[in-house]
């Protein structure tokens, strides 16, 4: 449905594209701080526009007859394959995209402001801001996509901006390797995504989200009938699309790039690798939820299992890591796993769609508190110049504001009421409980583990024993603290938003309540985790060492991230490089090329033989000529008499 009154929304991403171009092209000539302020200013405009859009969509005219409308605010033809199959670039407004607008612009704005302080004096400051603009532009483009191919386009663009930002410190080999890994792993997943799109479009004949996700439309019924290897084609294509989503959202086993991506500047981790880009996969599944639910329910269940498994897997690893950013990275993976789990068990209409709503709710909350946690971590790193947990301790006196903000973040993620995480996690657990008991118990456990590792971090950084620091740690500048305070407030209160009034799979609002029967055990297990962490890490003690020692092999495996990286390394280095690529290069040089050279050599050889006739001996030529002539005459005279 076209709606012209929202056509200004196209400016929300475009402003940032221009910001990218201006800062990117003029970057070298501007004073660094000027490009920073430029970028922030442009983003501020976008943010204001987004808030205005959200306000008018949710509270003024988004609803019609009690149902939220999917509005096409802008549409233009970008590329035409056939008369029917076209790529449009457009703006689709519906509850989740408007919600994402708010999330992205808010977090991004905070990160922009934060970075003014954090990145001050770094080389490549302008470059940093131009890439931030590029990223925000692409991310906004992604969520506003009206077309699955448009999603793919921006999907790739966020991938590349992530690559560029992870590799910000490009002189550090580890950063280069990490950025490369991130890009290639997600690229591999995107290949699945692309094939999924191709498969989907070839059966439904459209890329358009509105046509694809229309529950009464023809798109959903096509392709379900044809099956391949026991699953319907629709299921296959949706699984492939999920592969793309899993790559971006770091689902097991494609999660390996995210911890390494922490090589990038910390604000980047907060923006891209915690709040926005990594949840793009969740967003994509939510965007195509109707298709999953009606045409590929098997794929949906699969997503639920993958998400839940990943959340446990990552949570366990998070308990053993000592790099604070990596702990947060694994925590992100774990939380995204929960969101995927929530989506996987969701129903479609009315309160059955709680899983969907909860998942989006959690996405929203997670963006706030995880960005907060990362920015706090950034503030800590800024103060002590190390990422290593055991090199920190006793910082609560030096960094009071950061301390409080971090505490709020930890409480939020652990699901302690009345902070935001409590509400969304409770809804997810409720939804899972009603659908699948196994998944419920796993997620319930994850909630406890989450509280444990988060408070392990908290106590490790801020309590524990005071360490020796090269320079006395000091609180961060105002721009950074402003972002921390803003996000703290947000994380505290966003949980009170009645999300089910806004975001539901069938676009019809419903009212949800807190299920205390599930909420209370969840709070209890979170508190248990908290207390455990308190006991083990409040003061320096050998308790944790003894525990890890007694767990032995399990602990080491978790510490080594279950050797997944090593497996990948083995596959890429030994299998692909050594046993495919190098042999092909050898084959090309030695077999294919030598065949060609061999043909040349044979020609050469033959001609060397033939040239012996050309001896330069005049008499030999004459002799051949004479005898040849005689023979020809003989033949002509005696054998060709007719």
């Amino acid at each position, binding site marked *: 449905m076209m709606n012209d009154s929202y056509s200004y929304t196209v400016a929300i991403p475009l402003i940032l594209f221009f910001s990218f171009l201006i800062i990117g092209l003029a970057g070298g000539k501007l004073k660094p701080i000027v490009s920073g302020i430029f970028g922030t200013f442009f983003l501020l405009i976008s943010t204001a526009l987004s808030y205005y859009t959200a306000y008018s969509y949710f509270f003024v005219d988004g609803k019609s007859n009690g149902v939220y409308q999917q509005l096409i605010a802008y549409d233009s033809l970008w590329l035409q394959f056939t008369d029917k199959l076209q790529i449009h670039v457009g703006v689709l407004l519906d509850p989740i995209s408007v919600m994402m607008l708010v999330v992205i612009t808010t977090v991004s704005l905070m990160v922009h402001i934060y970075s003014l302080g954090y990145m001050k004096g770094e080389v490549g400051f302008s470059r940093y801001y131009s890439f931030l603009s590029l990223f925000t532009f692409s991310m906004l483009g992604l969520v506003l996509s009206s077309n699955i191919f448009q999603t793919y386009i921006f999907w790739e663009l966020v991938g590349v901006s992530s690559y560029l930002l992870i590799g910000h410190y490009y002189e550090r080999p580890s950063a280069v390797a990490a950025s490369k890994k991130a890009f290639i792993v997600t690229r591999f997943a995107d290949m699945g995504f692309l094939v999924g799109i191709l498969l989907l479009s070839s059966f439904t004949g459209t890329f358009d989200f509105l046509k694809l996700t229309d529950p009464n439309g023809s798109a959903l019924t096509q392709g379900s009938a044809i099956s391949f290897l026991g699953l319907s084609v629709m299921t296959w294509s949706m699984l492939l699309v999920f592969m793309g989503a899993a790559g971006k959202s770091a689902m097991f086993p494609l999660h390996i790039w995210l911890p390494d991506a922490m090589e990038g500047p910390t604000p980047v981790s907060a923006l891209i690798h915690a709040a926005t880009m990594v949840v793009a996969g969740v967003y994509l599944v939510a965007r195509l939820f109707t298709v999953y639910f009606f045409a590929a329910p098997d794929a949906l269940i699969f997503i639920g299992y993958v998400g839940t498994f990943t959340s446990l897997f990552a949570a366990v690893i998070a308990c053993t890591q000592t790099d604070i950013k990596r702990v947060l990275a694994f925590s992100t993976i774990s939380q995204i796993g929960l969101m995927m789990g929530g989506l996987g068990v969701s129903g479609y209409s009315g309160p059955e769609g709680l899983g969907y709503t909860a998942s989006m709710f959690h996405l929203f909350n997670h963006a706030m508190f995880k960005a907060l946690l990362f920015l706090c971590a950034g503030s800590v790193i800024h103060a002590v110049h190390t990422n290593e947990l055991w090199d920190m301790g006793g910082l609560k006196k030096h960094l009071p504001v950061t301390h409080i903000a971090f505490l709020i973040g930890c409480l939020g993620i652990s699901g302690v009421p009345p902070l935001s995480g409590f509400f969304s996690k409770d809804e997810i657990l409720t939804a899972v409980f009603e659908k699948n008991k196994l998944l419920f118990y796993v997620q319930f456990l994850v909630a406890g583990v989450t509280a444990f590792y988060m408070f392990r971090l908290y106590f490790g950084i801020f309590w524990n024993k005071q360490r020796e620091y090269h320079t006395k740690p000091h609180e961060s500048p105002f721009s950074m603290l402003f972002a921390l305070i803003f996000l703290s407030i947000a994380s505290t209160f966003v949980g009170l938003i009645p999300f089910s009034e806004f975001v539901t799979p069938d676009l019809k609002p419903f009212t949800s309540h807190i299920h205390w029967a599930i909420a209370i055990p969840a709070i209890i297990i979170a508190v248990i985790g908290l207390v455990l962490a308190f006991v083990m890490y409040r003061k320096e003690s050998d308790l944790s060492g003894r525990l890890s020692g007694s767990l032995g092999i399990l602990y080491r495996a978790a510490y080594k991230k279950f050797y997944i990286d090593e497996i990948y390394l083995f596959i890429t280095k030994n299998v692909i490089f050594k046993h495919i690529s190098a042999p092909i290069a050898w084959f090309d040089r030695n077999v294919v090329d030598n065949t060609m050279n061999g043909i040349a050599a044979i020609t050469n050889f033959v001609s060397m033989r033939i*040239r012996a006739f*050309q*001896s*330069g*001996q*005049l*008499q030999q030529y*004459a*002799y051949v000529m*004479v005898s040849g002539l005689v023979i020809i005459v003989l033949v002509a005279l005696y054998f060709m008499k007719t």
Partner: protein
Amino acid sequence: MIENIGIEQFLILSTLMFFIGVYGFLVRKNLITMLMSVELILNAVNINFVAFNKYYYPENLQGHFFAMFVIAIAATEVAVAIAIIISLYRKIRTIDVEQVDEMKY
């Protein structure tokens, strides 16, 4: 008179002379002697021309003139050939045909 000699005799004579010339051309290694063999061949041809003119076309002189032109051409040929032989001799101090095999491959 000449009627007593058949044209075959002339032809056989010239054939023999021709092949003697060819034999010389094939076996003599000295370029000058090869040149002489060529002269033999040319002369053999001349005899044929003249004989045919005499026996079958006495009313005009085509064979006769051809023989004359052959003689003229033989003269030019010898002149050029000897020039080549001499300059060759200056260059490589030999006129042995087997040594003159630069023009190969």
